[in-house]
């Protein structure tokens, strides 16, 4: 009888135990963070099991998520969701509006992200993604190379950069200003790191698409195309396959995200901020005044909860999310483990992060740039739009097959056609 009671109790406890399937980004440091959080949560909530698994990249994390959702084997919750992919999930009614869940406002207040969350609203006014980190993109300059050229301050405007490049090519024809094969490729997401980063700076963060209309700042877009074309004409660009050109000094300028530094610590420990490289804002057209904040592109990602997960699992997942992000110490743990700046309004001012930022001065500039960092376009056709931007706009403009004006007109027409006239 006693044995039966024990077995019954065991069966009851197993039945009440809730499993949340959490897919973390396929990045070891992010998986490590979530595994630690899941373990810590288990200690205070033994009834809930958070199973953390990296998203299988087969061949991309988005593809793996879609395949799993279509096959009915999807997770309860996953991170690594950028707003464009979130728009596809939203259109497919696959994700939960997080602001309808209990404790949303309290979470925003606890995490101090009332401003940062604003750009994450979807067309219906709901929030389907909880942003976790915001990588405001900056540029790195090899100051050792600049000093060899007699340049003390990194150039700020397009013309200043072209001047530096002319000196560089004159002194060392085997060295390039920028090495970027992807400038000519049609890989849609690469446009974030060459076109949008400069467009956001040149347009002061002007929107690119509103609803189903391209509303981009024409002048800024043409200026970006023209800048890359002039760089290519001057022989400043290397658009060929090349490995770690900035790190080994074959190129002296490169866009850099904060994820770079963990890799450098391992593989290029000689690269030190202020000694051989510095970080700057994206370059701007000549007429833009100095001393003003410069906008940039934000490689920002967050987490979503899936509609097709069982209701109890969704609720348990949300409780877990609230538990993690209501404590700044967990954001600090995230920052320390991944080096990816948490999406918080107070990252630069909250004492919790002060000591870590002091130890990692390179990350300070990234934290300061977050308010001026513009997330990707919110449209479910993001891939087609950015592919059209590549094929009709950037690549032909860089190659010189079209004038920058013509390339922009063609790209704009192609993108608008995808959105509907």
């Amino acid at each position, binding site marked *: 009888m006693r044995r039966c009671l024990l077995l019954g109790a065991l069966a009851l406890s197993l039945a009440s135990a809730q499993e949340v399937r959490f897919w973390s980004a396929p990045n070891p440091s992010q998986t490590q963070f979530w595994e630690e959080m899941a373990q810590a949560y288990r200690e205070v909530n033994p009834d809930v099991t958070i199973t953390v698994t990296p998203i299988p990249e087969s*061949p*991309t994390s*988005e*593809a793996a998520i*879609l*395949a799993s*959702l*279509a096959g009915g084997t999807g997770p309860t919750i996953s991170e690594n969701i950028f707003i464009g992919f979130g728009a*596809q*999930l939203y*259109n*497919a*009614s*696959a994700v939960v509006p997080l602001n309808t869940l209990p404790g949303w406002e309290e979470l925003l207040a606890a995490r101090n992200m009332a401003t940062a969350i604003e750009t994450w609203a979807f067309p219906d006014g709901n929030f389907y993604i909880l942003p976790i980190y915001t990588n405001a993109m900056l540029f790195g300059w090899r100051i050792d190379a600049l000093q060899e050229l007699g340049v003390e301050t990194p150039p700020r405007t397009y013309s200043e950069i072209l001047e530096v490049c002319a000196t560089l090519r004159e002194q060392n024809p085997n060295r390039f200003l920028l*090495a970027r*094969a992807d400038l*000519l*490729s*049609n*890989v*849609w997401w690469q446009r974030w790191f060459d076109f949008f980063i400069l467009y956001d700076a040149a347009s002061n963060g002007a929107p690119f698409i509103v609803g189903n209309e391209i509303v981009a700042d024409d002048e800024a877009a043409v200026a970006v195309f023209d800048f890359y074309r002039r760089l290519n004409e001057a022989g400043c660009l*290397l*658009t*060929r*396959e*090349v*490995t770690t*050109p900035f790190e*080994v000094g*074959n190129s002296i300028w490169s866009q850099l995200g904060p994820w770079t530094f963990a890799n450098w610590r391992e593989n290029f420990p000689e690269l030190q901020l202020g000694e051989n490289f510095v970080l700057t804002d994206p370059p701007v057209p000549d007429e833009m005044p100095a001393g003003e904040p410069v906008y940039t592109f934000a490689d920002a990602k967050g987490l979503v909860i899936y509609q097709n997960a069982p209701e109890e699992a969704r609720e348990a997942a949300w409780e877990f999310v609230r538990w993690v992000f209501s404590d700044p110490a967990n954001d600090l743990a995230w920052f320390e483990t991944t080096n990816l700046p948490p999406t918080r309004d107070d990252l630069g001012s909250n004492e919790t992060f002060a000591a870590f930022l002091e130890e990692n001065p390179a990350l300070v500039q990234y934290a300061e740039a977050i308010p001026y960092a513009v997330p990707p376009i919110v449209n*479910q*056709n993001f*891939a*087609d739009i950015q592919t059209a931007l590549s094929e009709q706009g950037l*690549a032909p403009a860089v190659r010189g097959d079209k004038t920058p004006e013509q390339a922009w007109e063609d790209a704009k027409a192609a993108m608008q056609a995808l959105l509907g006239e």
Partner: protein
Amino acid sequence: MQRYFSRWGWLLASPYLLFTLVFFVVPLGWGVWLSTLSWDLISPSREFLGLQNFAEALRSPRVHAAMLTPFRFMAIFIPVTVAAALVIALVINSVKRFQGALAIAFFLPYLASGVAAALVVRGVLDYFGPFSSFVRTVFRADPDWLGNPTLAVVTISLMMAWKFSGYDALIFLAGLQSIPHELYEAANLDGATPWVNFWQITFPMLYPSLYTVLILSVGAMFSVFTEPFILTNGGPQLATHTWTLEIYYQLFSSLRAGYASSVALLNAVQVFVAVFLVRRLMEWWGGRYGWQ
């Protein structure tokens, strides 16, 4: 009695029939149905479009590129692979010892991960790497291996040829080893040279192997994915854009499962027609010389 055997025949064939039904007939039927829809596979709503997806696909420059790319690859891949596989098979067949080890060694590239191989190729073609530096220094040339449309096709075709040569060599090796020695002995008695032996005995006797290799090669060129995905993403200017890249892009980047399905069906039609024509061509060629 005949009925008894018939029942046993069906029973013994049933695993294969079941496999075909589950993994071929049902998915094909589902794919045809999917191709008539505007659906992303995960939305609760879907719209019936009839043949609109096919009409759109047939107008798409990306699909046109995908139709042409396999033939661009074939033009380089097939002659290079057949020649290399034949040479490898002849070499392996001529050695007395370690035939198995040699065959495995040449077969290994086929087993290598396409992703890893593509990354190695990317490393080899690095602008500042030893290979590119050597070409620049010695030949005073600076070929853009992956950025020039023609060179990108050549690079990927040669990479595929490297991968498939060992596999095809095994087919040729099996063919070589099935040729009766008596034929060579008789020819030698008649004073035939090795050159004559090859063209008059070996090559005609290898016709069935060549037939197999060509059919497999044509099929393989319609399903290339990993190499262009990693190295060129179908570029430059869609020169290496394949069917599978287009299906992947439409399904996983644009979430257009219905359209992707229509593209996949057009791909299947093209493969069927191409393989049918190659078979007819091979049969005509073999029949003309009496090799069949």
